[in-house]
């Protein structure tokens, strides 16, 4: 399949300022040849009752509260499924069934490693600031990568990102996406998370140098990597089986990089580069809102160029302890990034960061709604970009891009991982019947459904070899209600 080529100036316009349609139909392409793509987004810290929409027929409307969290999604209702009554399979298997005891062992802050796996977590290492649970199964996005050669064969099999620099190791800083099994077979590896959007830009679009210099740089890189591969193979014959696997992983990484080098030097032109001052390695970057936007822009551009078909965004950790919102201070002044020094002491009493706002959602309901609305605005921006960027078949990209938006817990202070409300935007060539509100994914009032029904549907919609169930089959198969 050929890559798209398009005019640099149109792409710049699309990425930088106004959201104009990017791509004119580019030759005759059957709709079925248009690639299907998947984006998963995870956000922590739950939500207030204002996040639940009002039923209108089979659809919904946002609650008319101040800072109504769902209001930014109103223009995109036709492209959305709002789904309630979702349970995440929690914790280490203690013999308790999630259907009977949704909070069997672990709370919403430790849920990220198995949010999208459809299977319970397993105990990971004990770490300095907590106890780490990890994944026992692939996450849905990486499963799609592995099952579809057309996806894994892209220069970037997936783009795994988060908009803030977080150190590894904390229980809240665990990844969202998991791929192959670890060496001991007990848990799953996570692809490296890309944080700095300008590094992502350089990786995708080759940095600032001109095409001749770029090609020269790539030829040199290839010679370095080829040499490294030869040396790795010399070692591989001698080492033990665990080390053989390590070397195999290293060789695979080199193959990936070489594929990226070969592809980038061609038709796909770089978009404009955002203002580099938005990036900071601080764990509470005051311009994180702009980093999220840039990462969305890069994801849509990479998908438009067919450099990748799968993306994973975490916004940001599973507790957002360090995430503050100074850009919202024009709407609620206390969200400004200043500390008065007069607040009472005690854990979790600060008014600024996402985690603390969530814990005080009773007293800080306006703040909570506003920050939840902010993340929903980012989600809406994603939908908007995908809706206004055209595929070569002339249809908006969103027609063939699924965007799953998953919150990790129900209320801010309660940490519940049952009865969650998630969103599925976009479509996979008409697979889903959008424009609806399903208060209960199970289809039955007050009956909760595990994530598996939704995740199985995504896997099948993406065109993976059809499966009866995704994750742990004990949690059942596809939720057909999603198709209408």
């Amino acid at each position, binding site marked *: 399949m050929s890559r798209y080529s398009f005019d640099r100036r149109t792409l710049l316009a699309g990425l930088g300022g106004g959201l104009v349609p990017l791509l004119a139909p580019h030759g005759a392409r059957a709709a079925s040849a248009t690639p299907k793509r998947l984006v998963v987004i995870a956000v922590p810290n739950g939500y207030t009752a204002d996040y639940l929409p009002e039923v209108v027929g089979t659809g919904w409307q946002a609650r008319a509260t101040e800072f109504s969290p769902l209001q930014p999604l109103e223009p995109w209702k036709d492209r959305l499924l709002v789904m309630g009554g979702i349970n995440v399979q929690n914790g280490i298997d203690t013999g308790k069934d999630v259907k009977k005891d949704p909070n069997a062992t672990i709370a919403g802050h430790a849920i990220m490693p198995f949010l999208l796996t459809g299977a319970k977590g397993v105990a990971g290492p004990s770490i300095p600031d907590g106890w780490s649970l990890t994944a026992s199964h692939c996450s849905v996005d990486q499963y799609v990568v592995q099952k579809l050669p057309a996806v894994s064969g892209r220069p970037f099999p997936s783009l795994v990102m988060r908009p803030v620099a977080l150190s590894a190791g904390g229980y809240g800083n665990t990844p969202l996406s998991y791929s192959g099994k670890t060496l001991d077979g007990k848990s799953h590896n996570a692809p490296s998370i890309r944080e700095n959007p300008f590094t992502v830009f350089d990786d995708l679009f080759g940095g600032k140098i001109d095409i001749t210099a770029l090609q020269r740089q790539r030829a040199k890189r290839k010679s370095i990597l080829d040499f490294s591969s030869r040396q790795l193979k010399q070692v591989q014959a001698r*080492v033990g089986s665990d080390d053989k696997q390590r070397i195999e992983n290293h060789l695979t990484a080199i193959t990936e990089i070489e594929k990226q080098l070969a592809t980038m030097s061609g038709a796909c032109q770089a978009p404009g580069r955002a203002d580099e001052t938005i990036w900071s390695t601080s764990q509470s970057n005051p311009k994180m809102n702009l980093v999220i936007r840039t990462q969305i822009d890069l994801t849509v551009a990479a998908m438009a160029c067919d450099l990748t078909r799968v993306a994973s965004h975490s916004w940001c950790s599973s507790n957002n302890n360090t995430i503050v919102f100074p850009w919202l201070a024009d709407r609620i002044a206390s969200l400004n990034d200043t500390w008065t020094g007069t607040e009472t002491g005690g854990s979790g009493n600060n008014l600024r960061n996402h985690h603390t706002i969530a814990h005080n959602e009773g007293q800080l309901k306006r703040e909570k709604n506003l920050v939840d609305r902010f993340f929903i605005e980012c989600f809406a921006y994603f939908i908007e970009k995908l809706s206004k960027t055209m595929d070569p078949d002339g249809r908006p990209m969103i027609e063939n891009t699924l965007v799953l938006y998953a919150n990790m817990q129900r209320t801010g202070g309660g940490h519940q991982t049952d009865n969650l409300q998630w969103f599925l935007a976009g479509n996979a060539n008409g697979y889903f019947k959008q424009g609806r509100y399903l208060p209960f994914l199970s289809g039955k009032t007050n009956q909760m459904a595990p994530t598996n029904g939704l995740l199985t549907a995504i896997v099948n919609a993406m065109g993976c070899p059809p499966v009866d169930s995704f994750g742990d089959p004990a949690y059942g198969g596809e939720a057909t209600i999603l198709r209408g």
Partner: protein
Amino acid sequence: MQPYSAVLAVGLAMAVATACGGKISDDGDGRGGTGMASPATMTGGRGGTAAVAAAAGVLPMRLLTRAEYDNTVLDLLGDDSHPAAAFPPEDAGSTGFAQVQKLDDVNIGAYLKAAETIAERASKDLKTLMGCDPAGAAELVCVKSFVTSFGRRAYRRPLRDAEVDEHVALYTDTLKGTLKLGINEAMPTLVAAMLQSPFFLYRWESAWEASRDGRELKLNAHHLASQLSYFFWSSMPDAELMAAADRGELQTTAQIQAQAVRLLADPRAERSISSFVEQWLGITALEGALRSKPGWGPTLARAMIAETDRFAADVILKGNGLLTTLFTSRLSSADATLAAFYGNKTITGTTPQPLTFAQGERAGILTLAATLAAHADENDASPILRGKLIRERVMCDAIPPPPGGVPDLPAPDPNTPKKQRFAMHAQGTCKGCHELMDPIGFAFEHYDNVGAYRTMDGKLPVDSSGAIKGLDGSDQSFTSAVDMMDLLGNSDQVRTCLMKQFFRFGFARKENEDADVASLKAASDAFRSSNGNIRKMLAALATSRVMTHRSLAAGEVLP
């Protein structure tokens, strides 16, 4: 009883039934769960003591950590740009110390970009880099001599002739031939290729040239040299260590011991101690931490981390080396920024000056600001995080993960004592684990969310008294953190734990109570008989089987 059995007694005592899963369990990786050694191995019940004493663990390949990478390029090329800062974050593996585990395009790509940048800088003056003039007819001779000498340092072993030829062929056939690069582009590309080589990136050196020694393999001399230098310096061997390996002078215990003493006395040992201490105490991410306190910021955080590094190096490398001193000394050092934080107005400038803490205010490394600030909530001290740190990292006990559906503590109230707010933790299902953490953590209540000393918390005086449950097998009470440091600094359990932590840091894996028993016993004996001298313990590890030997890995083929 031999000295080592005291360690065992601690392990067994720790298995007494308490809450938190029924017992306080240790955090080891081996069998039995009673500490590093099971009674069976000690009495020869499993194959006999002699067989166990001859054992050594496996030595998996591992990538240089970020700290090791930065140190190595500094020593190899004088490049002090800390290129590893741009690498993806490391995972704290099961050891609690950094391990690069991911081998994907993002990570390998980051190494590639670093290699290019470093090589570019190093190649600005080719004559100096290569030690010969590559211009003119002698080009290939010069390239070959560079590959031989630089390769020996970069790969930490002599290159075989065939390998030298492969490198020269890369230069002549590919870089100059196919790609038609001039010297000024071909040379940095060759250097980058060597920095991207698995022989540079992996700690594996000439592992396959090990010789059989009973059931195990004895590392060859250059591999051992590298093991020693990364253990003591977190960096590549220096010329003297490589020369000792060349001459076959890393054979006897006395020879290795002499090198260990030399390496410990070298300033480069401070890098390794800093790296250890920062990870052991969990202060690496302090710079980015959000703390609500006037004056808090990256500058102060960096000053705090640097103080902890200096404190550790002063005690461990330059002072009497005793664990007791590490835990109880009141002598630290500070620059003006940090001194002002500690309430000292006489120290000025950016060069650290000696600073002695007031009696009763602070004592030892655990009461320095960095560790206290790192284990705190945004706007208050956290008894839970601090207690957890001591329990896990200083006492080597394991604490299971928190259960789900945990309710919040009551909101802070300046008129309610903090301990009263935490009363819920002393009841029901909370109690089992929190009684292991909270009482220890409350000892540190004299230090606020950034580690500043205080006597009042809100409107009430601080109460820092309490008791440690199950320290050396019994409950021991204290009046304050300073008082508690005397208990920790003289505890068998803490001494054993610190040894294990150094083992995990140095060998990138948890100790195995079967394979490593002889090495651990040697280190433990040396540690104990020297009244807790950390240098003696480290030197004993350096001459033990875990340093000099390894097991054949499953599936490994020796040439």
